[in-house]
């Protein structure tokens, strides 16, 4: 039986506690080292999905990339209260670029 975690600044994630997801607040400003350690620790436990706010994901990009090939956990960026910084789309774009060699799905968005 796996659980779901949400990671990020407290203001962005406290609502998920009501739904029954585990929230892991990280104090702002983000300390990449401490947050990375926390993420690794959680990935080692039985979390199948870890949602992470985009602002925190931007800090932990390398750490998140290292879980790309692993079956679990799935680390998914979501927008926080501070808004959308394009981190989520960037991750998908990265997959496309890795597979196709160039970005063919989101390119019309870049042109706009």
């Amino acid at each position, binding site marked *: 039986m796996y659980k779901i975690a949400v990671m990020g600044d407290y203001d962005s994630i406290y609502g998920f506690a009501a739904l029954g997801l585990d929230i892991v607040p990280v104090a702002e400003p983000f300390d990449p080292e401490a947050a990375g350690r926390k993420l690794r620790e959680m990935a080692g436990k039985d979390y199948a999905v870890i949602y992470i706010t985009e602002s925190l994901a931007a800090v932990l990009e390398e750490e998140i990339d290292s879980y790309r*090939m692993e079956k679990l956990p799935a680390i998914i960026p979501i927008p926080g209260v501070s*808004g959308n910084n394009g981190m989520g789309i960037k991750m998908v774009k990265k997959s496309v670029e*890795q597979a196709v060699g160039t970005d063919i799905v989101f390119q019309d968005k870049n042109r706009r």
Partner: protein
Amino acid sequence: MAAAHVNPTRMELTQLKRKLGTAMRGHKLLKDKRDELMRQFLDLVRENKVLRERVEQGIQSANKNFVLARAVMSDETLKTAFLAPKQEVFLETDVKNVMSVEIPQFHYKTRTSDANDIYSYGFAFTSADLDDAVKSLADILPDMLKLAECEKACQMMATEIEKTRRRVNALEHVMIPEMQENIRYITMKLDENERSTQVRLMKVKDMMLEQTHHYSSRYDRQAARDEAVQES
């Protein structure tokens, strides 16, 4: 090229030919695998894009609701409201095999079946905006899980496609040409060997005939005799 370190023997040649056959078949199969993976990946990535846009929008509007709720409530009441969640979400994972990529599938279960258990607080001291906010967040949770599944699948397939593409290219541009070159080298070398044996045999035959019949000395004597006849 690599011809320098192959043994030009018949055994090596048969072995190489067999290897080349396998490599060709593997190359064709891998190419097919790559094409099919790519097709499925593109479908998946488009779905991923749609889902992501929907989830991002949903979370943003939920966040707006939370900000509203926060505006009319004190931090303490808010924290107390979420201190002891009633509901819990569990995930069960399955594995789906898509072109030998093992993609996780999530099925979620809640601890209690009551949909209203997401409100972990008494309604007396909290604002109605909070209820709205929690509800809007609960509504997008299924989409969020689908997004997680889809995005993970995309990531894993992208890695697999990259791997397969490398293999196809390695076979097509390195392994197969190298083997063809080696086979050509061995056949040429064997042909050359055969020709040289032939020539040697012919030479040996000549020498043996010479030994038994002494053709050359006989010709010499004949020539001398002819000369004598002409002179007289």
